[in-house]
């Protein structure tokens, strides 16, 4: 409420500032013609310079003669006419101008502020917007914690533990590049172990929308060296093999991973899905139709790719990658949906449409045909 009074007072002050000169009765007569004045001053200046010895008498004479000629010419000009400050038309003009001032300033200011300002913030008491609603509180705490850790890390950049804490938070916040840096620092400043290296590799993979770069592969291989059974590293190495076109190698890795994993390990389903996609014989059929959710990271990766394609578009290859990912995750409806969107997005590109259709047939997403 207070703020509205302030805004009102500001408006009133602005209007008054301009109304005031309009309301004054000015006693303006004939203004001295500025030209005439100027040349008179110039002649006086020449006299002064002559007195000070800056000009020679002959120079001063010539300068004065010229200024005098101009003065004569200026005096013969029209101009310096009387001001029209009194009488009926002047009064009408003044009224019209006042109306203009009284209407335009408040209306324009309020309209502009209404469109671009945030007046809804003002209707709350000043303290209220500092306390966000309940559901945002958690988010805010998280941000606060992140800020604190960041400040700490800025001072102690070699604290690997701190980097390790903040890395997964970055990942969850979608700041994947920061997560990569954080994991990298965690690996660098602490004794490297398989888990850290796999996490670092995973972040690299996520940053590349699922592509396993040489850097990431290096991290996974190092992890395997430290711990031959590291499941995450194995899983991604199998992926890398798939991306390199070495399906057989991928199958071997995945089967050995499955063999060495406890039956209730969280990644078992994902590994089975992957094997299914590779067309390998499975020791045990996965429960069909049930929604399958792989490790959090894969789901996140696919979601990241989906949202990127959604907002920025992408190539046919990327769309097919998304379709395949959904199919691998068992989310056939989503895969079909992705195929439909891909056809919409790439409608102009017949080559791309062919690629999409081929993939859809391969994945047996027949219901998604237009």
């Amino acid at each position, binding site marked *: 409420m207070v703020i509205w009074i302030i805004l009102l007072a500001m408006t009133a002050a602005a209007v008054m500032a*301009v109304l005031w*000169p309009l309301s004054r009765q000015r006693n303006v007569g004939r203004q001295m013609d500025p030209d005439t004045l100027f040349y008179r001053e110039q002649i006086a200046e020449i006299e002064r310079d002559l007195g000070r010895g800056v000009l020679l008498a002959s120079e001063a004479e010539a300068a004065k003669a010229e200024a005098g000629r101009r003065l004569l010419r200026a005096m013969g000009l029209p101009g310096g006419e009387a001001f029209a400050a009194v009488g009926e038309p002047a009064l009408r*003009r003044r009224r019209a101008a006042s109306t203009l001032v009284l209407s*335009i300033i*408040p209306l324009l200011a309020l309209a502009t502020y209404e469109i671009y300002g945030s007046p809804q913030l*003002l209707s709350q008491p000043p303290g209220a917007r500092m306390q966000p609603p309940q559901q945002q509180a958690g988010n805010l705490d998280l941000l606060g914690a992140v800020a604190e850790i960041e400040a700490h890390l800025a001072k102690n950049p070699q604290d690997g533990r701190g980097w390790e804490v903040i890395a997964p938070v970055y990942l969850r916040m979608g700041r994947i590049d920061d997560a990569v840096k954080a994991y990298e620092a965690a690996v660098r400043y602490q004794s490297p172990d398989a888990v850290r290296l796999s996490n670092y590799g995973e972040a690299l993979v996520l940053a590349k929308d699922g592509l396993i770069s040489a850097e990431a592969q290096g991290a996974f291989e190092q992890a395997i060296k430290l711990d031959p059974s590291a499941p995450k590293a194995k899983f991604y190495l199998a992926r890398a093999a798939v991306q390199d076109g070495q399906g057989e190698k991928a199958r071997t890795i995945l089967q050995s991973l499955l063999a060495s994993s406890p039956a209730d390990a969280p990644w078992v389903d994902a590994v089975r899905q992957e094997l299914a996609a590779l067309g390998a014989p499975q020791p045990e059929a996965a429960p069909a139709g049930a929604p399958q959710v792989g490790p959090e990271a894969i789901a996140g990766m696919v979601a990241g790719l989906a949202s990127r394609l959604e907002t920025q578009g992408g190539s046919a290859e990327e769309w097919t990658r998304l379709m395949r990912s959904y199919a691998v995750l068992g989310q056939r409806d989503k895969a079909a949906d992705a195929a439909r969107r891909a056809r919409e997005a790439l409608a102009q590109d017949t080559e791309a449409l062919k690629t999409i259709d081929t993939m859809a047939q391969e994945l047996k997403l027949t219901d998604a045909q237009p």
Partner: protein
Amino acid sequence: MVVEAGHFALALALGLSLIQFVVPLWGARANDPVLMTVAPAGALAVFACIAFAFLALTFAYLNSDFSVLNVYQNSHSAKPLIYKISGVWGNHEGSMLLWVLILALFGAVVAASRNSIPMRLQANTLAVQAAVTIAFLLFILTTSNPFTRVIPAPVEGQDLNPLLQDLGLAIHPPLLYIGYVGFSISFAFACAALIDGRIDAVWARIVRPWTLGAWAFLTLGIAMGSYWAYYELGWGGWWFWDPVENASLMPWLAGTALVHSTVVMEKRDALKVWTILLAILTFSLSLLGTFLVRSGVLTSVHSFAVDPERGTFILGILILFIGGSLALFAWRAPMLKQGGLFAPVSREGALVVNNLFLATACATVFIGTLYPLALEVLAGEKISVGAPFFNFTFLPLIVPLLLLIPLGQTLAWKRGNFLGTAQRLFAVFGISLLATMVLFAFTYGGPVAAPLGIGLGVYLVLGSLNEIVTRSWSMGTPLPVAWRKARGLPRSAWGTSIAHAGVGLTVIGIAATAWGVEALGTLKIGERLKGGDYEVRLERIIPRVEANYREDAAVLTVFSSGREIGTLETMKRLYVTRGMPTTEAGILTTGLGQVYASLGEVQADGSVGIRLYHKPLVLLIWIGALVMAAGGALSLTDRRLRIGAPARAKVAPPSAVPAE
């Protein structure tokens, strides 16, 4: 609350500007003094509103109020206080707000100088000024609003671009903007003169201080920007012919021409129409500069804004004002009274030549800057026009102009005597030639450009001083009398000489860069790198952690001919929040030259890449610019009327002169 009030103040300023535009124009047409007085009142109120808005934004920065999007994007609570303040204009939105703040400030000054400006001229000028304000306020409010909020407020900001976290940034944009925007006043006066159909020496007298002030600030701004690029970007260069630099050079060249043609107009009532056109062109080039930098059509450190919406908007403003004012010019200029006549060989004639050269040089820069853009738009072809183009086109235009400076300064008004003038400069010319030859002999085998350029610079400095000397001293005059007489010369004469001497100093500095030495090397601790007469030894590398960055600092000991002369430190910084690395050059000043080192990559084996330069006399480049601006300022303090005595100047009798 303060922020919202600031936002509202900006909206109020828009309404007030509209009144300031409409009512005074109407008043001037009807010759109604009451309506005309709305102009100064409106200008003062607009200034108050925009100043309040600016303070509100500053307040948000100081309190790290991250609920303001602009603060969140460009500040950080750990940032030092000075960069919190300079951060206000260290980004697109804030810098545009600074732009209109300066615009409004100048409008307020015109409004306050009520008695020295004829009423109709003032009313029309402020109306035109208001039109510019409206356009830029709309631009700010609709496409670059600094008061946009984010709810809920983020806890921490994203930090200011590290390259811009520097004292240079705190000073450079305000100086540059005062220069750009100062020309808007000349522009507004020119349009007012066209609207009213009156143009005379009075007009020139009123406009001169504005043009001169704007020019001096622009000079400082460009010099500051150049020095900033020199030490911050770590490439050791001081001018890159980068489009952003050209964007400020073009108004400077046109403004320099304007400063000179205004003098002709005030003293001799000539060159009127040309001066008006020049005033319009100068501000148009300032607007163009704003467009180039703000629209993001160029990719460089200055282009914070990459947003087509903004670019289109500024392009609209550009077309509206340039097109509108030129149309006004085409319509009204033929009705203007033509001015006085003068002989080709005269001070006026020399100034016309000056204007021709400057205008052509400006056109060259214009083509070199815009042609690649036009080509890219039309043909989709990307070419880069760099130093070679400008060296081939700009230098041949500027060198003759520089040669003419002392001559023009010595010529008399209205009708001069070329031979007599040349005779008076004979000694100056001889000394400069001698200096060139001596330098050439001593540095035989080195670059030829350096002695030639330095000779030119010496000629300029001596030629400027010669003017003061010959006006106050002749053979046989006792020195104290001559000194008194010299002090009695108008300050504008001193200003002219000093500014022209400044040009000479800059030329010397530029010419001496040809003697610069560059060396590259990978050093381990204790190893040495030699560049010319100078040598550095890497002492140690110190990692440091500061509030918002961490850095590796290399400490180097500098030797000159085997003797230790000092140490310098060059840093590689990483700004943690933006994850952005920067290089801080280490500079050791030796007289007017500098030893300049910048740190490259730190290798795995602990060795570091070091780039070492020795730049003799390099400081003169910027000292020259400072001297130029000082000359302008000195001339600015001279509020007397300018008189161009038409007879040929002779040496005045040695009489005592009271100081002015």
